[in-house]
């Protein structure tokens, strides 16, 4: 028993040492280095890089990604802001090089029309189908009268005669 407890204690201390050894790494990874003095510029740079897709890891924005290309493009955005370019000019710069694909919000054009109105179209179709079905069901509930046999049976049940046992 004692040796087992001793072994556990040793294991725990080894784990603790390992965690301690790794902790500076953990502290490092979270910190973003402020690269811009001007807070307005910084805000614009962050906003722009959130709007642009990183092409290396396609489900992340340039702001989120740590791919080397994303780092370069973030630097590019900051340089251009410093050089006095407008947000529109910077976005155009990116689209010229990487196509509409870099934009998380694709522009309105013939090729993206389905993308934009597709969900609305689906909603409209679903609503139409639902309405049609509801109307049909109501019509079906109304249209059929009871046959004479059914009417007699219903009467028997209602007057307390009960269902006759076969």
């Amino acid at each position, binding site marked *: 028993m004692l040796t087992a407890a001793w072994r556990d204690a040793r294991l725990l201390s080894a784990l603790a040492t390992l965690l301690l050894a790794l902790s500076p790494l953990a502290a490092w990874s979270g910190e973003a280095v402020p690269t811009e003095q001007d807070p307005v510029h910084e805000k614009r740079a962050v906003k722009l890089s959130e709007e642009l897709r990183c*092409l290396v890891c*396609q489900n992340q924005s340039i702001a989120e990604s740590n791919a080397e290309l994303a780092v*370069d493009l973030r630097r*590019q955005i900051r340089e251009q802001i410093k050089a006095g370019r407008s947000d529109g000019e910077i976005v155009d710069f990116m*689209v010229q*090089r*990487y*196509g509409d694909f870099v934009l998380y919000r694709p522009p309105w054009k013939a090729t993206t029309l389905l993308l934009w109105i597709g969900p609305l179209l689906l909603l409209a179709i679903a609503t139409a189908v639902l309405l049609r079905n509801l109307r049909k069901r109501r019509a079906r509930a109304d249209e059929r009268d009871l046959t004479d046999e059914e009417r007699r049976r219903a009467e028997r049940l209602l007057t307390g005669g009960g269902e006759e046992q076969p």
Partner: protein
Amino acid sequence: MNRFLIPLGVFAVLVAFLAVGLTLNPREVPSPFINKPAPAFQLAQLHQPVLMFSQKDMLGQVWLLNIWASWCASCRDEHPLLVELASNRVVPIVGLNYKDKSGDAKAWLARYGDPYTLSVTDANGRTGIDYGVYGVPETFVIDRAGRIRYKQIGPITRQALEGKILPLIRELQKS
């Protein structure tokens, strides 16, 4: 009958869309450069850094611009094809050494063979950004007038080389 046919039809359409989707490669983003002039650059040559090279120097020729780096694993995959292409003297190949150390790049070429008419150094990746590079290797086919006619994203495969790139080069060289 309709009760089964309609969901079945919807299902068939869905399957058709998914099947087409499976065959597409999400990494292949359509390049906005096709039929546009190749972006301008002026960079130092890898082997003779005192000499500059600009895309204008190639006007009048059909040529390939191959973006490569010694740290890029799939560059090694396509490299034998480039060496073969160069030995056939079909087309001049210019290498754009992307975000690399010159020493590493030269050692890499010495080891695996140098198919390039010349290589230029894009140490900070700025020219790469101008060419919309996002995955090394990439290869551009550029025509006599200096327009980009085709972009290969990722390594050149034999299939791409023989199916698309070589026929295009021959056609461009004729005109």
